[in-house]
């Protein structure tokens, strides 16, 4: 779980510098600064509408597709600003994968779902695709359950399986970072537990940023936590410390349930 590490020993994967975000004239994020460490799980918590999902989507530039969205500031991944002019957004999204709140499997076969990403990035050889698909499904902990059902429609499997399928789909393009927007909020407790176990394993190889409204989940699963409130980042630090001895009063109020 969470180990007590000296922050200075940690390598930073994602640096956020003075990030402001606007939807047309409405400002949604105010001056966010954060260093997200590599191969750890960082959780974003906060009440509804505080901007945590918006912030998550700035990391893989998914907000670009929204009309009227505007950004100021920098986000550096391995030192390079992803909002600079020459950035290849397609390549960025290959490095930074995303799993959505409501699982969204494509109305294709299970195989085609997972193979979608690699296909887009140029892999056409069927054997290679099968290898990647199997590897990703194993990684997502879904392989054993559906290895004989690969040609079936992805819409025919259970909700928990669909979400793991979406995780496998994201893993298939071999990302370095995984963004997860409330990945278990639509699932039953058993499936939720499986997803949380999965995150625990995945942390060994991927930098994970997860948005969650469930504080217990954040406490169980993450190494670092950031508390967002009304578009501001209130506090950031090791999960264990933030949950037991928060620096800010607002953080304490949120964690003890006084609001949100």
């Amino acid at each position, binding site marked *: 779980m969470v180990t007590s590490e000296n922050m200075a020993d940690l390598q930073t994967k994602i640096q956020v510098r003075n990030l402001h975000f606007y939807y047309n004239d409405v400002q949604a994020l105010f001056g966010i600064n954060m260093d997200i460490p590599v191969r750890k799980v960082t959780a974003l918590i906060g009440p509804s509408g505080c901007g945590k999902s918006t912030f998550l989507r700035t990391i893989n530039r998914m907000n670009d597709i929204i009309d009227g969205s505007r950004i100021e500031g920098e986000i550096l991944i391995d030192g390079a600003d992803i909002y600079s002019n020459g950035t290849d957004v397609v390549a960025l999204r290959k490095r930074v994968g995303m799993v*959505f709140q409501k699982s969204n499997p494509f109305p294709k076969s299970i195989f085609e779902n997972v193979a979608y990403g690699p296909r*887009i990035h140029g892999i056409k050889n069927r054997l290679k695709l099968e290898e990647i698909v199997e590897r990703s499904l194993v990684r997502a902990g879904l392989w054993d359950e559906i290895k004989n059902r690969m040609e079936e429609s992805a819409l025919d499997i259970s909700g928990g399986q669909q979400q793991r399928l979406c995780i496998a*789909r994201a893993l298939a393009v071999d990302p370095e970072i995984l963004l997860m927007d409330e990945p278990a909020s639509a699932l039953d407790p058993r499936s939720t537990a499986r997803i949380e176990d999965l995150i625990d394993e995945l942390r060994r190889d991927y930098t994970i940023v997860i948005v969650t409204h469930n504080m217990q989940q954040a406490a169980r699963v993450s190494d670092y936590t950031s508390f967002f409130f009304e578009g501001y980042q209130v506090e950031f630090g090791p999960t264990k410390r933030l949950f037991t001895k928060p620096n800010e009063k607002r953080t304490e109020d949120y964690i003890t349930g006084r609001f949100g």
Partner: protein
Amino acid sequence: MTGLKNRKVETAIYWLMRGVTYFIVLVIAYIVFDILKNGLPAISWKFLSGYPRRSGSEGGIFPAIVGTFYLVTVTIIIALPLGMAAAIYLSEYAKQDRYTRLIRLAIITLSGVPSIVFGLFGLGVFVLFLHFGASILAGSLTLASMILPTIIVSSEEALRAVPQSLREGSIALGATKWETIYKNVLPYSIPGMLTGSILGIGRAAGETAPILLTVAAFYLPRLPHSIFDQVMALPYHLYVLATQLPDVEKVRPLQYGTALVLLCLVLGMSLTAIVMRSYFRKKYRW
């Protein structure tokens, strides 16, 4: 006491409404039935494959069938890709700005223009100004202009029916916008686009006014060689048979036969579209 009386009055009014509504149904059914009943005896292989004789008062309607077929085909070739492309722009690319509103205004305006005005437009622009002359090309361009709004509107509807989550999932995996549309939106919307378009095309097949001035002829000795030729067409043929020929009693069966063929063609297309629509609705559930 009044409660009971009110209920009786209510029921009577409901029956009145029911009667009126089914009266409409009855009239529609009667028209179809009348054409069927009087047209069926006129249908024979000779009628369908033969050429008209004696200024159309005898013989068959083969060239009119062929002409309608050519017109519909060229119209589809022009209008379908154009309409679908326009719909893709409106649904997937367009921002909510003034130019987009202008496009939508144009589409609504077009859908309200009377068919004879399209005929004048076709005459002025395609036949005369562009020197295509009275031809399949001019006629099809005119018909295509007329059904363009229908195709755009129904295609856009089909595109919007695809959930946004599919697009987002694809983009998040690193696909470009066009890749996303091509692989994850179009495959699921093409059936709907085609269905809506078939209805528009059916309308094009049955319209007389736009082709009156731009392509139709009544008595052509041979079939067209190219798209610059004039053709005979079923709607126009029916019109002339019904209004310009003197020997009314003799021509009556041919009139009905022509009407029946045209009706079957157009209704057949509508029916196909409706059947397709329910089939695909069941196939793609999200």
